[in-house]
């Protein structure tokens, strides 16, 4: 089954959240111009990215090293001429052995290249996407392994439109709780002081609005932080403890009356309904 749509309806942040939580392996292609961007993932981790017509073709390494300043233009040109059809892994090994760059230079540069392409996608509000499961870069490509939680948090920090956040997080009167294993994931993240202060108040007793107020954050600021934490799968929404969920009524402010209980139906009524539906021909 395809996983496809338009960024207008399902944003880059949401796509990365999906890949992360579902621990997907495959390649996400986003096309909003002639040149598609491709992000590859293995078990929910970002491993490779390209943003050129050649896609996953090898031969990127020299360009990447040149862009990150590890190779001068002249040297890059000379290497390109001499490398012929060598794959990136072979070429990388050759450059390390020749003392041109270190292994660390290569890995850092590839990582930076992958992140640059990914962060560039956060600004896009339009573009067709498609996720192809189990399609990965060819073996000669140099891949990295980047946890998506940090990428998602970084991407969320770049959101500038209040409307987008309001659509995603319409009510500040909900509370937050930690998601499963969020303590393990939190340790690996590079969070800002503001984000840590918000996290310290995550508790089903506190509404998002209260957390924002306690930290002197505007509605936009608290929404942006909470949106990032939600998309990174660190927290989940819940109803504030001890408060019945509000029942929206036309013309009545949210938060007034609690919902009436479901009608008292006897067990045997449900059993008869089950039996009847099973017998529908």
């Amino acid at each position, binding site marked *: *089954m*395809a996983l496809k749509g338009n960024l207008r309806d399902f944003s880059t942040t949401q796509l990365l959240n*999906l890949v992360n939580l*579902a621990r997907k392996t495959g390649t996400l292609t986003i096309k909003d111009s002639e040149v598609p961007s491709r992000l590859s993932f293995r078990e929910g981790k970002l491993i490779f990215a390209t943003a050129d017509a050649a896609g996953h073709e090898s031969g990127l390494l020299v360009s990447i090293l040149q862009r990150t300043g590890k190779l001068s233009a002249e040297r890059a040109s000379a290497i390109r001429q001499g490398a012929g059809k060598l794959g990136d892994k072979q070429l990388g090994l050759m450059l390390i052995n020749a003392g041109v760059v270190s292994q660390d230079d290569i890995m850092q540069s590839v990582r930076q290249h992958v992140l640059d392409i990914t962060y560039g996608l956060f600004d896009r509000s339009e573009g067709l996407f498609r996720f192809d499961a189990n399609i990965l870069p060819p073996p000669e490509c140099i891949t990295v392994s980047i946890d998506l939680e940090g990428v998602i948090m970084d991407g969320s920090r770049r959101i500038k439109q209040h409307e987008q956040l309001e659509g995603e997080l319409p*009510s500040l009167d909900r509370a937050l709780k930690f998601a499963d294993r969020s303590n393990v994931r939190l340790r690996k993240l590079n969070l800002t002081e503001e984000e840590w202060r918000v996290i310290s108040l995550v508790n089903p007793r506190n509404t998002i609005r209260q957390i924002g107020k306690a930290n002197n954050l505007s509605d936009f600021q608290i929404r942006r932080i909470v949106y990032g934490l939600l998309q990174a799968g660190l927290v*989940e929404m819940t109803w504030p403890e001890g408060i019945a969920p509000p029942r*929206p009524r036309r013309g009545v402010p949210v938060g007034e009356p609690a*919902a009436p209980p479901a009608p008292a139906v006897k067990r045997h009524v449900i*059993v008869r*309904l089950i039996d009847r539906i099973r017998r529908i021909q």
Partner: protein
Amino acid sequence: MQTVKMVVTGPFSAGKTEFIRAVSEIDVVQTERKITSAAEQVKETTTVAMDFGRITVDEDLVLYLFGTPGQRRFDFMWEILSEGMLGYIVLVDSARPETFLEARRILETFSTYATTPYVVAANKQDHPDAWEPEDLRIALRVDSNVKLLPCVAKDKEYVKAVLLELLYRILDDIDKAEGQA
């Protein structure tokens, strides 16, 4: 004669009318109108008030199925239709990501009916562009303890499976409540 009701809700064009039609013993009472808005022209007509279907259990018990209107301007009907329901089904078009935000809004609104059991049905699973149910769970932020089932509303067996799952959930709640009493 005892009558009980379930509500079928979901975004515009999720397949609510088709879902009810699949199992109703009467022709579904529809209040459909031709669509005039260009943005909503993925089908020719839409439900503007409600759909209504019936399943007779025996001479003492009847189940009514109510479908909510899909368009936002008829939101006020939700509360009226939801009054006294046994449970509800949130139907989502798995092949139209442009409706996911609306589906989340509906889930959020209906979840305020705190004690009412519900299931989510990932409809149009026979469509080549359908998202898998577990991907939809993440996209719609459906809690892991809420049943999210694959569905093809034009196929009676899928519809039966969704209704049964909701009834099992209701039964489970009754058993828990009786256990606590």
